[in-house]
């Protein structure tokens, strides 16, 4: 408890690579939830102890594949009702998770627990600069209220520049 400021949590976490379950890396984090009803995102400071594996090759491959598409990528329901994700859409699912992570961070309180439930819709938007742009409609599941809420967001991504959410 920090008087007049909020609640601070000091965490020791183990990060598990979603694509390689045996790969873990430790990290420490400090999360400060602000007091009051104003909706501002918790402040997060993270230190990663160790290295995250390099995905340079796969990133570049994906980037080139999407850039060379004649028609913009459009897809729905990732995963589908039965949990299937076509292999070529797996990177899109991952990018949606990242983008959702940002939205979840911005909307989290001490009484929420969000997960990405499904990518309802994704549309690639071709850009004149070097970024890839994906407009998503994602469904976020909130555990305490059990609500599943649609959210529109736009993600910009570049293999070296990384991911940025531009509209949430």
């Amino acid at each position: 408890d920090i008087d007049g400021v909020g609640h601070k949590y000091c965490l020791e976490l183990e990060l598990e690579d979603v694509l390689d379950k045996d790969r873990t890396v430790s990290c420490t984090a400090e999360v400060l939830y602000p007091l009051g009803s104003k909706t501002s995102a918790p402040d997060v400071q993270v230190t990663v102890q160790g290295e995250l594996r390099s995905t340079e090759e796969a990133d570049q491959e994906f980037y080139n594949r999407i850039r060379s598409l004649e028609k913009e990528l459009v897809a729905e329901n990732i995963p589908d009702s039965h949990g299937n994700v076509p292999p070529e859409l797996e990177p899109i699912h991952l990018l949606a998770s990242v983008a959702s992570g940002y939205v979840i961070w911005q909307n989290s309180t001490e009484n929420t627990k969000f997960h990405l439930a499904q990518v309802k819709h994704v549309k690639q938007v071709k850009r004149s600069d070097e970024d890839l742009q994906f407009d998503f409609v994602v469904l976020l599941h909130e555990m305490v209220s059990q609500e599943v809420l649609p959210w529109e967001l736009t993600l910009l991504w570049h293999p070296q520049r990384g991911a940025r959410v531009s509209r949430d």
Partner: protein
Amino acid sequence: QKVFRVIPQNDEQVEILSFLASNMEVDFWQPDSALLVKPKMRVDFRVEAEKSFEVEDLLKESGMEYQVLIDNLQAAMDAQFDSKVRTTSHSYVKYNNWDTIAAWTADIAAQNPDLVSRSVIGETYEGRPIYLLKIGKSGSDKKAIFIDCGFHAREWISPAFCQWFVKEAVETYGKDTALTTLLNKLDFYVLPVVNIDGYVYTWTNDRMWRKTRSKNAGTSCIGTDPNRNFDAGWCTLGASQSPCASTYCGSAPESEKETKALADFIRAHLSTIKAYLTIHSYSQLLLFPYSYTYNLPSNYEELNSIVSAASKELASLHNTKYTYGPGAKTIYPAAGGSDDWAYDQGIKYSFTFELRDTGRYGFLLPESQIQPTCEETLLAVKYIANYVLDHLY
């Protein structure tokens, strides 16, 4: 052609059946031949259409207990062929729609009459029969464990587990010593889908639907959260009074036909039901009461050690990590849950499972994970069942 079911009570009646078999074409379905018939045994046999009147007269005259199991064999076979052609067939490693599950409940009972019987415990809001399967070798004075699945429509892995459990029971009876002992000594009531209307809705309209499909007065918002609808601290915390909310507690405890049917059944069988397991997803949790209060149940230590051991059993297969503990503290406080209600009725072993995963796929668990999820969960359920058997009360 007709199929008869008779139960000869004594040697005299067995004689009559032998006489029948030697004087006309009788095709024994169960047992395989007239020689195997004994008193008190259930005997099923087929006769030609023209002979069926003669047979019925004979049975009536003898005073033997009989029923016509199949009135018209050809018609029954035709219907079966039609339905297999038109509907998708059942799979234990795929998600099955309601029609497929309903047909499966009939089939699994018909194919395993000594182990499985099906009954209807009520009707859903939209008029669908709520099927219950009773699994176990028949015996007297048997205690029972009640397992239900499909409370929440979108939690598809849950009904998949109930179907898997039944499959394991019938397929390994007589082969797996542990399960055979359990089925000999205990009965298992398995309710494959509680919230059938909701489940159908997730297949036809909205994959993310949770509640029932009942209308609410004065609003267009549909449905009640069945797991906030029981009379256990009803609607005090962790539930919403708004019909539009996903955790709407309903207009009153047991306002939903589905929850009322479940509660009625349990109340009617309270003296025999010794454990209650309700299967949900997701989060990988093993919970026990209470969720409607942070207070701990009187046998907290015992329940905690059971779930601790059961989680270990579960993890032993694929290293899937479960968290366990009392509901309010472990997941969130939520009143009106069936596990708390069952516990307060006197069923002192009451558990809620939240199956795979922890959020990567959530409700949309891939079909490839059905088998491993069911296999590991079965280990935990068997552990709990064995514990209950060793601690009957």
